[in-house]
């Protein structure tokens, strides 16, 4: 058309960059307790609104309110609080250990502790997670030994993965924790395959896939949703929307869609958004989705709305790409503080006991760290052998690898 103006490309930018005043006024936060809790076998078409709201249980006064409340006893909540506090203390120690040169790399959970810790408690033994690198709460809340996590982080002689994998890319079949790849998005579709296998074998176990907001842009995400919806796989598909993919704000992956959860609607998959900093809400939604899977009602897509308080990893500095005070301005608060305040409101906890618990947890983490460091750290002490490097590529070592191992003198 001769009279049309020239085209121009739209490249989204976050509203706020370093030097600006943080502003989350565009994040609509519904009141705690205001979102309905439909029956798990409700027609997915009747659930579409859930993809655009945020399910919340804890209100500003620290009370648990609404239809998603009431699933956990004070003892269970206290256990959850301690899991989150443990993960936070663990992160702090390992972050420091990386700075001290005891390992090459670390990724912390600050601000996102509720997501993996609460989700874990909705699963049964035998269920399988296909996690990303920021769900170590699945291990902490699943009673995986912290010493083994640290041995892996240090790539020392007791590393269960023999020094072959980047720090924090844990694996524990026994604890329902699939080997983390380190590639993004790939495991989302594998979770669907695992769930399909369970259904093929008429098993009762279910799978949970994990992905970040940024990685939903990968084709694997789309393929996972196609297969999950086509075969009604017994899987919970979790998107952790922590607002930032390294330096890239979530608007780059999300495009014009209202929410990440809304991606599921075109597949007819029930899709929910939940306050990811609300332990009770995460747990309640996880329970709901897990029950759907277990009752052979098919997949559920869950978007956890949260905020990555720390850096992406030990290799980046967030002050270079986002406003410094942004995490303080995040409207959904700190998951640890919110659960702590709720327990105090219930009369089941106090500031004194919290301080005491913090000290006890720190002692436990330090004791585990000392134990792990007896087996070495990345550059000192015991380490996996060069022979271990050649093992386990195949079940049986083929001749060419045997020749190379000989050549390497091991």
């Amino acid at each position: 058309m001769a009279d049309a103006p020239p085209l121009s490309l739209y490249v989204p930018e976050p509203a706020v960059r370093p030097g600006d005043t943080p502003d989350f006024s565009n994040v609509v936060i519904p009141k705690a307790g205001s979102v309905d809790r439909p029956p798990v076998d409700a027609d997915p078409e009747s659930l579409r609104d859930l993809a655009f709201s945020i399910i919340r249980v804890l209100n500003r006064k620290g009370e648990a309110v609404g239809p998603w409340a009431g699933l956990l006893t004070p003892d269970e909540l206290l256990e959850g609080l301690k899991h989150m506090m443990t993960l936070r203390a663990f992160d702090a120690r390992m972050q420091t250990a990386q700075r001290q040169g005891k390992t090459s790399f670390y990724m912390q959970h600050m601000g996102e502790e509720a997501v993996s810790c609460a989700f874990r408690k909705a699963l049964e033994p035998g269920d399988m997670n296909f996690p990303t690198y920021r769900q170590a709460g699945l291990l902490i809340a699943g009673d995986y030994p912290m010493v083994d996590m640290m041995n892996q982080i240090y790539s020392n002689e007791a590393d269960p993965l023999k020094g072959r994998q980047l720090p924090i890319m844990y694996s524990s079949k026994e604890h329902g924790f699939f080997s983390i790849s380190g590639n993004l998005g790939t495991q989302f579709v594998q979770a669907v395959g695992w769930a399909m296998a369970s259904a093929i074998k008429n098993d009762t176990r279910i799978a949970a896939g994990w992905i970040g907001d940024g990685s939903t842009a990968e084709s694997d995400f789309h393929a996972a949703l196609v297969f999950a919806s086509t075969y009604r796989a017994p899987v919970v598909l979790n998107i952790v929307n922590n607002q930032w993919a390294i330096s890239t704000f979530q608007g780059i992956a999300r495009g014009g869609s209202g929410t990440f959860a809304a991606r599921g609607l075109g597949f007819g998959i029930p899709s929910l958004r939940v306050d990811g900093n609300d332990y009770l809400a995460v747990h309640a939604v996880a329970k709901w989705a897990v029950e759907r899977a277990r009752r052979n009602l098919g997949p559920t897509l869950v978007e956890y709305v949260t905020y990555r308080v720390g850096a992406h990893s030990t290799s980046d500095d967030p002050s270079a790409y986002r406003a410094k005070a942004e995490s303080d301005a995040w409207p959904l608060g700190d998951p640890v503080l919110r659960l702590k305040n709720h327990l105090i409101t219930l009369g089941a906890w106090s500031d004194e006991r919290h301080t005491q618990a913090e000290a006890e947890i720190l002692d436990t983490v330090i004791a585990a760290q000392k134990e792990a460091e007896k087996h070495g750290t990345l550059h000192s002490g015991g380490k996996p052998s060069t022979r271990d490097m050649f093992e386990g590529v195949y079940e049986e070592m083929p001749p060419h690898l045997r020749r190379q191992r000989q050549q390497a003198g091991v």
Partner: protein
Amino acid sequence: MPRMTMIEAIRDALDVSMGRDDNVVVFGEDVGYFGGVFRCTAGLQQKYGRTRCFDAPISELGIVGTAIGMAAYGLKPCVEVQFADYVYPAYDQIVSEAARLRYRSNGQFTCPMVVRMPTGGGIFGGQTHSQSPEALFTHVSGLKVVEPSNPVDAKGLLIAAIEDPDPVIFLEPKRLYNGPFDGHHDRPVTPWSKHALGEVEAGHYTVPLGKASVRREGSALTVLTYGTMVYVAEAAAEETGIDAEIIDLRTLLPLDLDAITTSVKKTGRCVVVHEATLTSGFGAELAALVQQHCFYNLEAPIARVTGWDTPYPHAQEWDYFPGPARIGEAMREAMEA
């Protein structure tokens, strides 16, 4: 003994494997009700039910990605990628995930999966139905790469691949599905029913992975090849009168180096033949190994006869294809050097 085409032999291998082990599942595009565009899975859904053999969405990434999850669960998925040319969307899943799962989890999780795919040209398939991507897989630690050249091997190797504890890329030379095509595209192909290797044992048997086979014994030079090119090389030997020893590698990874060195040390000359493009092709690996292990036995430079380094063309298919004339010329040059 039953006579089978390579398609029937592959179907029989799937049938035998599914019959013996409930954990074997088969899926892919058009694989279920219809039985596959090449008919390799015909009848399997009817026999084993829709949860053991089924149609998949057109997503190679999804087919292979879900198969990896199934294998990690404990099933033995044998999936079909409709043409090897379509495998690239699944490449990340194969390379970063299937191939490394055992290693990175220290054996907690494994991936006993087979990815079947028709490979090679000669069917006027153009650049999207003719490629030979084997070197993209032989370069990946943790994979096994198999390419049979006849019904007997196809069945035994496929059963072995399904029973293997590690991921196997199973390349089926589609030009050989119905007969041992020798590169003379203007002549009729002998059907497998009239070829000794079309006589396929019924029931369960395996051909071990990692073992080559001497298809033609000879003393003048060694041809290292696999897939369709086995018969093209045989034709070249007959037509030139050169007493070539033709080694059908059958498994490219792990490679039967002993069979290669035994033959080249005997003949002192070596021609490497594959249909895939030349540069960084699997022939480069073969040539490097031969010179490393047989240098003092070599009487002539190692020659490579391959597809040209162009995309696989349509109208010029037979100019691209390394036919008997080109192989024969390389053999003569090797003899004269």
